[in-house]
């Protein structure tokens, strides 16, 4: 008996330690004074697979914060960030957001990068009825239908169709009209959705789908896949992929000598400096969706100054040196928040949400208006084609004419060069 008592006491003691550890350092003044800074909390991927874009996004937000504080802050208060690393793992996200809300008692929360993270935070956010500005969530609110959710990736109301719309419309404008298309992608979330849309868009356009396969993430040999596609003699090849396989597919297409009228489409990763410089001239002729490229048709007010600041700082921190993909939208996200707070004049989240639903916002990423599910009312997914890339230098991608916008017509900055592989 006595021996047992000992063991149990230990267990209870440990439970006690657990309680203590969980609550330690969590005593926060109950109400923030007006003089105190506005604290904005978020979990962001700073390690793991999503960290490259996570860090880029965070840098974008920090530049906004510094700009704002230099201007004297918001409602007369400085702005501060409370950030935690979500390690690219959705499993820690619920913990981070409950800590931010319950223990840190931050004034506002924004999301980390990517759909899984956003979805994992949603129940906590919804239960607490917080305003939630989110960054690059793929139709994450379609299920929750939460009315204080606003998402910054310009996918529009029907995201899955947008990643291939430009591709198909551009293809169908070619002369003669193409008849066949091959669809291929990684077996994971984004490529699945993009391919779904591509399938539908292709059918609508009357294209015959001659190849439609997925490959597992971490595939090494893409040559075999590309050869199978080549054997189908498809006129169009639509690829939906993540960074490592985007590179693999482009290389394999060159190695196998794939000749099609268009190649590319929904490839994540090509937007980042890392892959652009790795692939260099191999990119010529490849088309891909993009969100921002330095073309004259996209000169939104403030974007150039922002990118200048970003690129200077990014070089020091070792994050994506171009910052075209996520950083402008991270900055714009905070601009939306800022403009809404100024307009409402308080941090009342119900009013803020109402205002964001109604108003439109001028940001470095253009003028934004949100629809009822919190997506951009008007989608703005670009289709770009790489042209005239020489060598592997990163600087050339800051120039115009290397990533020519083919679609949508409103922002078109050049003409397609087809076929691919010549």
């Amino acid at each position, binding site marked *: *008996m006595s021996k047992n008592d000992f063991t149990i006491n*230990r267990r209870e003691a440990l439970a006690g330690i657990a309680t203590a550890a969980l609550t330690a350092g*969590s005593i926060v003044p109950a109400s923030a004074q007006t003089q105190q800074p506005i604290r904005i909390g978020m979990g962001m991927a700073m390690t793991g697979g999503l960290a490259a874009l996570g860090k880029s996004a965070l840098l974008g937000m920090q530049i906004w914060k510094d700009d704002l504080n230099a201007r004297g802050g918001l409602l007369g208060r400085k702005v501060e960030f409370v950030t935690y690393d979500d390690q690219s793992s*959705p499993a820690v996200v619920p*913990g981070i957001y*409950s800590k931010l809300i319950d223990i840190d008692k931050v004034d506002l929360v924004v999301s980390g990068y990517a759909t899984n993270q956003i979805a994992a935070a949603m129940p906590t956010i919804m239960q607490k009825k917080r305003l939630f500005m989110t960054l690059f969530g793929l139709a*994450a609110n379609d299920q*929750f239908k939460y009315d204080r959710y606003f998402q910054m990736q310009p996918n529009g109301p029907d995201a899955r169709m947008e990643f291939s719309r430009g591709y198909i419309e551009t293809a169908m404008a070619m002369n003669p009209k193409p008849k066949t298309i091959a669809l291929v992608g990684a077996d994971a*979330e984004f490529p699945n959705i993009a391919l779904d849309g591509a399938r539908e868009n292709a059918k609508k356009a009357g294209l015959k789908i001659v190849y439609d396969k997925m490959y597992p993430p971490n595939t090494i040999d893409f040559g075999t896949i590309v050869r199978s596609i080549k054997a189908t003699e498809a006129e169009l090849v639509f690829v939906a992929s993540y960074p490592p396989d985007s590179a693999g597919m482009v290389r394999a297409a060159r190695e196998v000598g794939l000749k099609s009228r268009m190649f590319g489409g929904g490839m994540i990763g090509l937007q980042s400096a890392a892959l652009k410089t790795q692939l260099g001239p191999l990119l010529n002729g490849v088309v891909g969706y993009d969100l921002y490229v330095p073309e004259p048709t996209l000169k939104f007010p403030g974007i150039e100054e922002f990118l200048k600041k970003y690129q200077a700082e990014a070089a020091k921190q070792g994050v994506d040196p171009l910052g075209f993909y996520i950083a402008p939208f991270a900055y714009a996200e905070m601009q939306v928040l800022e403009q809404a707070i100024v307009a409402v004049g308080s941090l009342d989240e119900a009013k803020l949400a109402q205002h964001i639903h109604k108003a439109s916002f001028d940001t470095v990423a253009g003028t934004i208006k949100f629809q009822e599910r919190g997506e951009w009312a008007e989608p703005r997914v670009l289709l770009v084609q790489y042209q005239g890339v020489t060598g592997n230098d990163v600087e050339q991608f800051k120039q115009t004419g290397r990533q020519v916008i083919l679609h949508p017509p409103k922002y078109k900055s050049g003409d397609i060069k087809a076929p691919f592989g010549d």
Partner: protein
Amino acid sequence: MNMDHTTVTSGVTQTDKRRRRTTELMIAAAGILLSLLLIVVGRTYGDYFYVASYVVLQFVLLATAWNVLGGYSGYVNFGSAGFFAVGCYTTILLGKLFDAPLAVCVPAAGIVAGLIGLGTGYLSLRLRGVFFSIATLALAVMLQTLIVNWSYVGGARGVYVLRPDTSGPFDSYVQLLAIVMCLMATAAVIVAVVVERSWIGFGLAALRDDETAAEAAGVPSLRLKLIATTLSGFLMGVAGAPFPYYITYVDPASAFSLAIAINTIAMPLIGGTATWWGPVVGALLLGITQQVLTVTISSAANLLIVGVLLVIFVAVAPNGIVGLVRKFRESRR
């Protein structure tokens, strides 16, 4: 088994039996107490406390489940994430098919994962040591490939799981999840005690040391291993069952997560695999450390700590914290 084990009157076995009952009762009491504590403290500190407790207790459950096989019989399961994910996807499937409530999903998840555990038990007929471990790893990859290609449960794209409305006496759904997890972890620890101190645990301990010799001494090793693999699989499945409601969006990568595979092995090893309280201590220690680090250091270094702790313990204290405590007690004697 058609024999009455109580007829064995050798001293140790009988005291064991009495001792076991008291331990069981005390663990049950501690578990209920902890649940009550959760409610009280949670009211003060908010949902964060529930969320953190849920994660830590989930690891207590997983570590205990792993230890029932790995610690007691020496068969190392590398595929724990696979069993966890099976539990997880059982909930998703039943939710999609019948809108089944959690109370149904939990036992169902346990049964499905338990059956897969039974299958791995038959693998152990031919495979020992590292080969068994590699087979479990391969099994987890197979299961993942299956899920990735099964679009009904979301496939590679993943699936959203909306939490039901909070009902009954609970303030919030996370509170419910934390308490459910607390009770399940308590039950698992009791199961571990029962196994450890019964003829099953005794036979497993013998076959862990030397399977051939144990067989020669009349230990039905296959039967015992099947019990252990099934039980261990069952408990891991149970641990995964509430996860979809916790995370709300499940894709294969988050269900078959490496963090789960690693922690499930590291925690019992750091705590000590020989007794039921080793994995509990290991899970509490490592789980709480990770929770605290996530919101303090908040960098890659926090994963580093798991690795460093594991290496240090394996190298310096091979029997884990349990071993250290025993050494300490003996030195004081």
